[in-house]
């Protein structure tokens, strides 16, 4: 694979994570458990979609097929999507949404923190501003994880269930293939292996504070989101998200 394609593919993974998760959070708009939290979730969604936009814009600089950001979002088939499986999981209840988000937020904060030293000046300056958002996201979701875990029996059971379902999916944040390794070695994107243990320790401390049990199963090797092998959930997201744009090919909006 030529460097341009490697760079494009590697950035696409992180743009897709944020697009799909931002999309999922936006499904809450108008349906939050309180007005305050409805607004808070939309803020996170807007931040993630904004981050996705910047990373897509960076990625297409080396797209050999010269596609636009909207081409990538609206006209790519499911097998071309490169997000981790965790972010395409359905919102479920508020506990599921918060826990999924917390796992991502810790990862995102560590990733952006490290991206600040990218050799690419555009990416490092993007990382500096996005990191501020990520720090707040984590503060917000972490405090909810603790509240729900150490709240009522019902809230504890709900978020405990989310922990056992989602924790094994976090494996994919740190899985590496040849593409990842090449962009790490060039200093373009962070080496996620460097902060895998930090992620695990911080999450474990939060679970402890939230009086939640560590899950029995902690990883699954079956996930291949980075290779474009997704669950049916992403198919449903795309058929909704892309429906209008695809009904009017060539139209501008």
């Amino acid at each position, binding site marked *: 694979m030529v460097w341009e394609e490697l760079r494009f593919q590697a950035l696409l993974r992180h743009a897709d994570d944020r697009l799909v998760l931002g999309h999922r959070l936006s499904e809450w708009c108008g349906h939050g458990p*309180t007005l*305050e939290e409805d*607004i808070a979730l939309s*803020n996170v969604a807007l931040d993630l979609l904004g981050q996705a936009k910047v990373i897509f814009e960076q990625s297409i600089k080396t797209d050999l097929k010269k596609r636009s950001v909207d081409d990538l979002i609206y006209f790519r088939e499911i097998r071309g999507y490169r997000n981790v499986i965790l972010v395409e999981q359905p919102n479920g209840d508020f506990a599921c949404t918060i826990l999924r988000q917390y796992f991502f937020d810790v990862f995102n904060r560590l990733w952006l923190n490290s991206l600040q030293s990218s050799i690419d000046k555009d990416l490092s300056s993007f990382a500096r501003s996005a990191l501020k958002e990520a720090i707040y996201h984590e503060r*917000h979701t972490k*405090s909810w994880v603790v*509240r729900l875990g150490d709240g009522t029996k019902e809230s504890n059971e709900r978020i405990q269930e989310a922990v056992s379902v989602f924790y094994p999916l976090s494996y994919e944040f740190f899985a590496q293939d040849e593409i990842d390794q090449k962009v790490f070695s060039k200093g373009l994107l962070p080496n996620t292996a460097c902060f895998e243990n930090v992620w695990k320790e911080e999450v474990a401390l939060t679970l402890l504070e939230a009086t939640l049990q560590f899950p029995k199963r902690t990883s699954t090797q079956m996930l291949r989101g980075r290779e474009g092998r997704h669950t049916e959930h992403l198919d449903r997201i795309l058929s909704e998200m892309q429906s209008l744009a695809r009904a009017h090919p060539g139209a501008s909006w």
Partner: protein
Amino acid sequence: MTSGKVVDSLWEVFLQEKNNSGHVHVGSLRASGSEEALQAARDVYARRGSPISIWVVLSESIVASTPADAPSFFDPKDAKSFRYPNYYKVPRTLKDA
């Protein structure tokens, strides 16, 4: 209006818009505790502009004057002209530094 039910506390939100300005009341929100209130204030009332500080105060903690207090609290203040600089006559030649 209030029955025996349990609801989240009401908090008043004050925003400091820029350096060296005071905190100004911008509205209220409901939250179970102070961290939740502070975060909600950030999410609801600081979506635009670039405020530099937020206060959240339990509404019930605010002590306010009542309309009945107003005449005796505020009315006589304009009578105290000796509190204002124009009350004092200074020769023109004696300029302020």
